[in-house]
């Protein structure tokens, strides 16, 4: 019994960590650069589908199945999603925030409709199954399988976290912050805002693609329904709850919001009559919404928006001007 519980916990955390990767990607775009991307689902979907195409065995009813190693699928998913982000960014990055949001939302809807309808490539509404899973040969032992995958995903998130922290503290990260704070002043210092924004958007997109690839490989099955706008909403909720601009906050937020999501799913199946459950599933979204409101009321900058919270404290203590 308790072993089952551990296996479930490992599964739960592994899933949460795939969301943490998406959240880290969004944090590069929004938290560090201020790019309002409402098309997260598109880049996640691209990563998932590319990775699935690369790693599944040859399939009769669709293109590919190239049977390549899982690592190739992950890298390929990230690269293609990054390329897609670069293309989208090159066209839209000059737009102001609200227009960028509309444009990226349109891209997400388009990508979702594409994967739904490009049956020869994506398997259409039925999705792609039999995607090889990491440590698939351990699948007979749920505990070993779960823990191995958790270890792998933890290592990926940790490596990504360290790389992103390194970037945030680098001169590159400093320029991003400078541009976000005052574009005119940054330009006067020779920084090219468009170029840095596009780089951040591309990296964020690639990270989201990696998350899609990792998640698809972990579950072993992907379908267009996984990449509806609700996914974008979830990732945003995670980043806001955890603390935008903070990489640790992005990871924490993902685990918390995914926990709330899983908990509310369990509650719905436990307390709602079976024939009403499909409808009651909407309550999950309500719970995330309520959770989000609560966090924003108590900690407007998210749980780990700590540096900023401290900043506002010092602001209160320091007189506005000494003159």
């Amino acid at each position: 019994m308790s072993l089952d519980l551990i296996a479930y916990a490992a599964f739960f955390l592994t899933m949460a960590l795939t969301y943490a990767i998406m959240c880290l990607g969004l944090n590069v775009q929004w938290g560090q650069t201020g790019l309002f991307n409402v098309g997260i689902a598109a880049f996640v979907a691209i990563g998932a589908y590319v990775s699935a195409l690369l790693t599944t065995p040859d399939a009769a009813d669709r293109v590919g199945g190239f049977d390549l190693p899982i690592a190739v699928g992950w890298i390929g998913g990230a690269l293609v999603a990054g390329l897609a982000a670069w293309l989208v960014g090159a066209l839209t990055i000059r737009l102001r925030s609200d227009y960028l949001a509309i444009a990226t939302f349109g891209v997400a809807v388009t990508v979702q409709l594409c994967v739904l309808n490009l049956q020869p490539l994506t398997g259409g509404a039925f999705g792609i199954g039999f995607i090889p899973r990491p440590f698939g040969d351990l699948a007979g032992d749920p505990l070993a399988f779960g823990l191995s995958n958790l270890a792998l995903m933890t290592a990926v998130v940790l490596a990504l976290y360290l790389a992103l922290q390194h970037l945030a503290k680098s001169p590159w990260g400093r320029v991003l912050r400078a541009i976000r704070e005052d574009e005119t002043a940054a330009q006067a210092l020779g920084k090219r805002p468009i170029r840095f924004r596009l780089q951040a958007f591309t990296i964020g997109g690639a990270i989201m693609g990696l998350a899609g690839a990792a998640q698809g490989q972990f579950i072993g099955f992907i379908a267009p329904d996984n990449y509806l706008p609700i996914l974008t909403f979830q990732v945003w909720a995670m980043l806001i709850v955890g603390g935008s601009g903070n990489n640790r906050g992005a990871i924490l937020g993902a685990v918390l919001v995914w926990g709330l999501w899983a908990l509310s799913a369990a509650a719905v199946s436990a307390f709602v009559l079976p024939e009403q459950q499909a409808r009651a599933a909407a309550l999950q979204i309500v719970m995330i919404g309520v959770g989000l409101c609560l966090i924003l009321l108590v900690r407007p900058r998210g749980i780990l928006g700590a540096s900023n919270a401290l900043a506002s404290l010092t602001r209160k203590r320091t007189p506005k001007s000494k003159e």
Partner: protein
Amino acid sequence: MTSTVPDAEQSNAPPARAVIDARDLVKRFDGNTAVAGMSLTLAAGEMVGLIGPNGAGKTTLFNLIAGSLKPTSGEIWIGGRDVSQESPEKRIGRGVGRTFQIPKPFLEMTVLENVLAGAQAQDGERLLANFLRPGHVRRQERLAIDKARTLLEFVTLSGLGAQPARVLSGGQRKLLELARILMADPQAILLDEPAAGVNPALLETIMDRVLDLNAQGKSILLIEHNMDMVTRLCTRVVAMALGKPLAEGTAAEVAANTDVISAYLGATA
């Protein structure tokens, strides 16, 4: 064969040792002409003051020279190159740094980081170099930090390096902006009202520093309303009104010019 008409070749070449050479600049906004044919040169090592009543077009001219606006017509030459159509972020690479009338520090960054942001040709600003050549980036960053600290000392902000820039007063922000562009080693510095809203003690510091910089050979173009400051600092003063040049000379000459006096009194019509 002699000719009284200056030949085209010669008029096209920039005057010797002119760092900035603005020619016949015109800037129109939706039918409003803010700058209506201004020419201005800044020679190497020179300190020029640009004065004029509000609405004279000083800041527009300044923005044209700094590249944040593009001229409707006319040319801007910097270091012997026509940069009229270049984007503003290229100016600093051409050796021209600017400050803003209302200072624009990066408020949530530390004072030291603000100055570091002025550094040019930092390989660490390339994404991949941070992973491919981390040692090189670190060494370069260390040198930049040393230089930034020296500059903070120069502008008397050395004790505040670790503070977020938003704790600085208005005058300190102006000094920070100065340090930030000095990080880029510009040949010419455009100062937009360095005295505005600055307390007298800090104003002395700013003036001292500007004089120091000029003594080090930097060319300086200064917009200022404070005539005392202009008189003390500038060897040459250009007065403008209604987008056009009005008078030019030493501060005393310009101040005594009747056109200038009537422009300030609002009698230009």
